[in-house]
């Protein structure tokens, strides 16, 4: 069973719909026992870092997530769930989970795109991911595939954790982690068949460990 962490952070059902479509057993839960019993954790989220961390702490889920990752349980962070696995987020000046060393920072206002036009914030739409380190999550995913992004802040982890990069005004880290702990800035559940491949790969990894 894959658990999708429920911490009142936006629409969690779209990830569930993706997993249901792939016939991957899953449930949306905030129950600690269910989380501990699961074979893998998906940590999604839409919204602001401050309230997300507050909700996690109030439910005592921050410690559970840290313990489970320490025990080697696979975890996949998505979007906001990707950002708050870092040490700190500039959004609402929020201390975060610290599962991956680094910070989450905001796109600067003055950035320009390839044609010299000022970029819009949020970064919204389809953009390419350049995989710089091979990893099981991207097995079967062509280099520079497009994924769907919606965000105003981006992860800036220590170099060792950068797995993939995307260009929007600057080059930022859109995929980070290490084996068994991954975080994606884009939405795999909204990125068509290629996005679903990533969810499937995560499940396959969970089954193997």
């Amino acid at each position: 069973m894959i658990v999708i962490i429920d911490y009142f952070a936006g629409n969690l059902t779209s990830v569930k719909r993706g997993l249901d479509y792939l016939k991957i057993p899953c449930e949306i839960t905030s129950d600690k026992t269910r989380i501990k019993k699961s074979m893998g954790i998906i940590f999604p989220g839409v919204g602001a870092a401050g309230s997300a961390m507050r909700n996690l702490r109030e439910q005592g889920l921050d410690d559970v997530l840290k313990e489970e990752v320490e025990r080697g349980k696979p975890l996949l962070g998505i979007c906001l769930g990707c950002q708050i696995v870092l040490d700190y987020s500039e959004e609402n000046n929020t201390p975060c989970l610290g599962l991956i060393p680094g910070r989450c920072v905001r796109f600067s206002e003055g950035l320009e795109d390839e044609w010299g036009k000022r970029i819009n914030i949020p970064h919204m739409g389809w953009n390419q991911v350049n995989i710089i380190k091979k990893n099981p999550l991207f097995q079967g995913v062509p280099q520079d595939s497009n994924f769907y992004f919606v965000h105003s802040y981006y992860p800036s982890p220590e170099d060792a954790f950068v797995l993939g990069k995307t260009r929007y005004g600057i080059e930022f880290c859109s995929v980070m982690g290490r084996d068994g702990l991954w975080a994606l800035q884009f939405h795999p559940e909204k990125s068509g068949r290629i996005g679903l491949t990533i969810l499937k790969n995560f499940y396959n990894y969970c089954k193997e460990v």
Partner: protein
Amino acid sequence: MLCKRVIPCLDVRDGKLTKGVRFKGNVDIGDPVESARRYYEEGADEIVFYDITASHERRGIMLKVVEKVASQIFIPFSVGGGIGSVEDMRQVLLAGAEKVSVNSAAVKNPQIISEGAEAFGSQCIVVGMDVLWVGKSKLIPSGYEIVIHGGRKRMGIDALWWAREVERLGAGEICLNSIDADGTKDGYELRLTRMIAENVRIPVIASGGAGHPRHMVEAVTEGKASAALIASIVHFGEYSIYELKKYMYERGVPVRMSW
């Protein structure tokens, strides 16, 4: 590099896909879920549903359509038509839509934009604007006026002013429909599209007038739009989404070509 988006628009009435044909009113042309799935498989970047169901009692049918679509297609899609409150928005988003679009309701009650953005985030809120060329005047300095009820009612509001206003209120995106170009198949209203796109910092979706893939290229280059909305050009089988995107790609437009 951020891709330009190709977005098919599906009009839905009483749960069926429908299309306005000039002089004939609306004709049913199929199942919206099936069409959405076909467009998804052909490479649509996003899908827009517009609910034109007249009676309030039958609106539940649309939510069923939204749920079905959400369980089968895995790209963002938005739902508009008849959204008049934050509660309407919530229902559509819970049913699985990524975004909601408001049009007349926002003109009558602009607060709905900020309330929606506050509750669900700006990225969820698309403001649809129906715009008519009326010539420049003191009241309408840009010459483009906001109309509602499918173009039947002029509102005395300048389109450029309104675009800036919806951005200020927290809209995440503008879907800009030219009443003059709509249904002509002569191409998008590029002057209007460019004027709005250059004056807001949220994405503008060009709508109304697509009859040839060339028009879509124009919308995102000359018109500076982030996306091109299409309807008839794909509904009646003239082009597939893939053919349209390939045409754009071959002319140097950054589009998503594999999925």
